[in-house]
């Protein structure tokens, strides 16, 4: 069997655990099927629900030893809504890992600013984990995270841990605060201005809705970041994950195989163009 056909056939994978995050987000812990290589931060897998459909979902955590990956899924559409019914012990279809992830080699010894909006945090979480694990290998870590409401904040139980990582700053903000909210208010990109970072020896990783990424990129450029130091994880419609179905094109790039993580300089010609 040749590559492509083989790749559109899902492998069976076991759900080892399901964790509720928010009212419409859950994290699914999936045992990697035999022969599948462990994904790298920023990569994604295609998850198939029996008879329902298949969706691209980023890796939000990985335990190499037990070969369990985490996928944090927000229930938004026809396929993702059925994830609500998935329970521990269920079987799911699995293909992956796909795509090019975050440039972990490039950031060794550098300061890093992670900017996440909404469901954009899960793909960045493995980066945080890696930095924490090899803390001395990297410079300062700044995490900026924003969601629409307080209820949408993900992984709140980990925030103390993020803050406890040495040489790390963690800021959250929400667009529409609740009454008891005591932290930042407004869109996450507003925070960029205020962080203390030297663009010449730093990298910025951004993940979130396209509009948010556009303004994040704008802010970072204004702050003095060069385009080759800004990395974005793009999102498009995807049906195959291997650069064949065509849907994920952004200009000449197939987001699934040339990305989803792109350095800004690489896509800058198209990134700003309306409805490209």
């Amino acid at each position: 069997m040749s590559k492509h056909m083989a790749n559109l056939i899902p492998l069976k994978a076991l759900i080892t655990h399901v964790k509720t995050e928010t009212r419409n987000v859950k994290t699914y812990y999936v045992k990697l099927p035999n022969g599948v290589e462990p994904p790298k931060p920023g990569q994604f897998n295609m998850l198939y629900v029996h008879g329902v459909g298949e969706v691209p979902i980023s890796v939000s955590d990985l335990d190499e030893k037990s070969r369990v990956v985490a996928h944090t899924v927000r229930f938004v559409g026809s396929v993702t809504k059925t994830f609500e019914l998935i329970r521990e012990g269920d079987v799911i279809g699995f293909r992956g890992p796909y795509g090019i992830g975050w440039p972990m080699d490039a950031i060794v010894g550098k300061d890093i600013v992670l900017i996440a909006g909404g469901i954009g945090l899960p793909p960045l979480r493995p980066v945080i984990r890696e930095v924490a694990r090899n803390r001395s290998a990297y410079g300062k870590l700044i995490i900026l995270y924003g969601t629409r409401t307080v209820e949408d904040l993900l992984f709140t139980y980990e925030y103390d841990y993020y803050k406890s990582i040495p040489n790390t700053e963690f800021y959250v903000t929400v667009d529409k605060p609740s009454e008891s909210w005591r932290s930042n208010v407004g869109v996450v990109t507003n925070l960029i201005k205020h962080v203390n970072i030297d663009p010449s020896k730093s990298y910025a990783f951004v993940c979130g809705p396209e509009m948010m990424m556009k303004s994040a990129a704008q802010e970072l450029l204004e702050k003095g970041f060069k385009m080759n130091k800004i990395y974005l994880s793009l999102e498009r419609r995807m049906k195959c994950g291997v650069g064949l179905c065509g849907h994920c094109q952004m200009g000449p790039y197939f987001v699934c195989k040339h990305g989803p993580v792109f350095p800004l300089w690489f896509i800058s010609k198209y990134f700003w163009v309306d409805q490209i």
Partner: protein
Amino acid sequence: MKKLKVAIYKFSSCGGCQLQFLNLEDELLDLTSLVDFALFYEARRFVDLGPYDVAFVEGSISTPHEVEIIKKVREESKIVVAIGACATSGGIQALRNWANIEEYKQYVYPRPEWIEVLKYVEPPSKYINVDYEIRGCPINKEQLLSFILQLLKGKIPTLLIDSVCLECKRKGNVCILVVRGVPCLGPITMGGCGALCPSYGRSCYGCYGPMKDPKPEALNARFKELGVKLNEIKLLLRQFTNWSKEFRKVIEEYE
């Protein structure tokens, strides 16, 4: 799996859409183990009172009495699915919306004064919030089955919303518009029928209603270039889904 408790209602219509349930000859008996047809007057006397998981609603709303009932349907059903051209756009009987109803009553009935109807025939969505639409005059049973099976899987059911042309070409039909130069509504009509008409050598007459984001003005401009008279273009759009928002707009422009 919990059985879906289903109610099937009929308003102003021909009954052809709900008949598609009974047309699922191969599947009907299996389906009854997944679906509980709690209210289905076309098929059974027994009625299991609501609330229902899903109400399939056929037909348009054309009398004051129907307005009452459709509101009740909404109240007692978790999901309301409009089936067919009548329930999604008013159907053929909405043609009376373009005329004087009093004159119509006199034409058809010896005692017109006994006739009590609303001024306009409307789809249920005019009065209540409708969750899903299955298009067609009538709907096709494959789509119906697929819809139900998707629901049973907990999925937000998806059906085709792009053009009939898409299905026409996939199927390998010859384009009637291009080859014969006669008007075809395929390019602005929602797929789902499997490009039935072009497969039988006739142009699409739009019984699935407007597709997502249709461009009727652009198509009409082409019809005019092909020599089709304005009145005939009007008649074309003014068929089974004449009261749909998108078609109505253009027809009104031509009035």
